[in-house]
């Protein structure tokens, strides 16, 4: 494992897509320290902003200069990195743990591996990701798992779990995968959603599921729906039992017994075949 400790807060956001297990794998300590990061238009060395710790062998001893690939696939980052962008961009394997906050585009386009953030994350968490797991313990910004501007589809697989609140356009144009948000999401959750599952444990602000084409939004709190969603029925979706079982292994609980889900279909302005399921506990 390599430990990076932020030693100097960048004055403008630092573009650090090289903080990624695929990049550091197999590099020497010196090479990791010399990795390029962009501070504005200026190219800098990673060690201008981070203390790069020596890698440790599995037995806890300080490592040799030449890291082995399997050791280097774990990164731990300490400090308030809310101005450090693109951490874990396109990663395919390994693990990143951010002890503190993370900046924009965390895990953007990743296809595998695990990212964990103990604090908050900014916008575009897991945007257009294909696989892997991102877990944010605090709040996240907007466009979680979303499509970048102009793209046809957002996240195409994988899981994003957010403990706190999230911002605008969560899951915008997502195609597959699961996003679960513990707190409240802001406007336009599931905007133009094409598939996948968005679980809202703490409810949502307005225009949830606008222009959604397919996919499922599950809300455990009553939410304000657009007039273009129509009520279809109240039922116990059998597929949710499987989802609940899977999510439980990730520490997310959604209720199955002791109530029913109201199903709303939409967005009929498209016309879409998506669904919003709203939990109704038995009184």
């Amino acid at each position, binding site marked *: 494992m390599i430990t990076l400790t932020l030693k100097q807060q960048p004055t403008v956001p630092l573009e650090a897509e090289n903080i990624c297990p695929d990049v550091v794998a197999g590099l020497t300590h010196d090479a990791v320290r010399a990795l390029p990061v962009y501070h504005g238009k200026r190219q800098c060395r990673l060690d201008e902003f981070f203390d790069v710790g020596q890698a440790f062998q599995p037995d806890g001893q300080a490592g040799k200069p030449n890291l082995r690939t399997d050791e280097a696939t774990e990164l731990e980052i300490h400090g308030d990195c809310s101005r450090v962008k693109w951490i874990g961009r396109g990663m395919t394997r390994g693990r990143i743990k951010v002890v503190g906050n993370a900046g924009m585009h965390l895990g953007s386009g990743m296809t595998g591996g695990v990212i964990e953030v103990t604090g908050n994350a900014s916008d575009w968490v897991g945007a257009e990701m294909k696989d892997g797991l991102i877990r944010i313990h605090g709040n996240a910004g907007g466009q979680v798992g979303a499509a970048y*501007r*102009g793209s046809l589809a957002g996240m195409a697989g994988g899981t994003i779990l957010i403990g706190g609140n999230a911002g605008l356009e969560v899951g915008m144009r997502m195609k597959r995968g699961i996003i679960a948000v513990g707190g409240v999401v802001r406007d336009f959750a599931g905007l133009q959603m094409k598939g996948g599952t968005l679980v809202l444990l703490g409810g949502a602000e307005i225009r949830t599921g606008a222009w959604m084409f397919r996919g499922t939004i599950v809300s455990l709190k009553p939410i304000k729906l657009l007039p273009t969603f129509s009520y279809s029925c109240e039922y116990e979706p059998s597929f949710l039992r499987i989802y609940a079982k899977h999510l439980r292994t990730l520490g997310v609980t959604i209720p199955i017994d002791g109530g029913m889900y109201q199903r709303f279909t939409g967005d009929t302005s498209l016309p879409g075949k998506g669904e919003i399921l709203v939990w109704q506990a038995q009184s």
Partner: protein
Amino acid sequence: MLRIIGGKVYDPANNINGVIKDICIANGKIVADVDAGRTIDATGRIVFPGGVDIHTHVAGAALNFARAMTPENQRTAAKFMHTADTRAGIGGPTPTTFATGYLYAGMGYTTVVEAAVPILSAKHTHEELRDTPIVDKACMLLMANNEIVMDLLEAGDFERAKQVVAWLIWAAKVYGVKAVNPGGVTAWKWGKDAKQLHEPVYGYNKITPAQIIGGLANIVDQLGLPHPVHLHCNNLGAPGNVATTLETMKVLEGNRAHMAHLQFHAYGGDDWHTMRSEATQIADYFNKHKNLTADAGAVLFGNAVTITADGPWQHLLYQLTGRKWGNLDVENETGCGIVPYTYKGSNLVNAVQWAVGLELLLLIDDPWRIFLTTDHPNGACFWRYPEIIHLLMNAEVRKERVKKLPAKALSRIVLGDLDRQYSLYEIAIITSAGPARALGMPNKGHLGVGADADVVIFNENPDGEMMFRYPRYVIKAGEIVVEEGDIKNPHDGREFIVKPTYDEKIEDYLKPVFQSQYTMSFENYPVELERAHHAEVRPV
């Protein structure tokens, strides 16, 4: 001064077919001999005249709109980093200006024709062409939906229409006249299209698309422009449009004409489910009528962005795809539509389109009259031309690709039965000598003494795609701009402009019409000559 020795030269305009001979260059021209300067040893290599793209869209308001509309393409596009020699930019379906020049030159193309320029945005086009390095450029002026010209043709005032067209050509500083969906774009301003050649255009009493086509072809021929009317027929892309295309060709009898992106106009069938190739029918007629030239407008599978002045077609395409749609209205002159599109090998319609482009290139027997284009960026990006060359040169590869098409498509195309293979000599014709001749550019597309010194040196390779994608040397106007595959010392290209003769008094007629109809003042309308960079004006 430069001497290229030992190369196998293909120079169809001078009947040189793979002869080993030296090419000498001095002062940007091919000369008989030089006594000093650098020597390039091209032994074992192939020497071609620089490529000429007769129909592409590389600059102007519409293309810029397309660039802005498709950030998803820019993100994944090839990056051109700033170097001591080159400016930064990106490739992809709609490359940026500087990258466009590098990509064309990097492929051995030295002359390109921007095929759709409205007068109102011609200034913008010239500014962008100025930033498109290395290649020489020329523009085609959109004319078939110009309401001033249409009014005159409707009134039967042919002589005055001719004067107006001549004035407009010089006002826009262009090289030729383009006609896009004649009458259809005007009708589009009423939400209509012009699907019938012999019915009056919506909003007009008498004038029909056929009369506009015939009128413009006559005007261009009478003005003596070097390139005939450059025609995008009505009913582009629609199943069954072969009838319209053949009818249009009949209207053009007695005039010269260039049929743009013919692939999009050679479909049979009644709807999308029954659409089939009619390349055979088109090629039969075309082969017999020597007044016509055409470019293929071939399609390759993958991402594209469709950009055309054909507004109504673009709206239909938008409804078919459900993707993004951009629409521009250019006052009394034309319109424009933009829709990103993905051609899929698994899609029946796209498979037929892919086949039709190749079929036309193979069935039209005279390579001097059919040229390689993809109607960039409509059918595919221009930097994918080598893929088409490879398919043309190798029937086996082509047949393997046909086998991968959907089974339903096979009965709708004839590509699988065609055995013709292009020779290097013929490739030199369809990529260089032919288009240069059709454009009336006597110094382009050949390596005879006096020609512009635009020379390409390839490594001989049985894989045509590899060979034509990576020329070893490209020499433009006598300067080496690609050396062993790398761009170096890119210089500015020239712009070719024609100046037709017209009666100055036509402005007395135009000015009041203009002042009452346009949003800009008459004085600001024409493009100043200084705006066209390195302009080379040819009076006709």
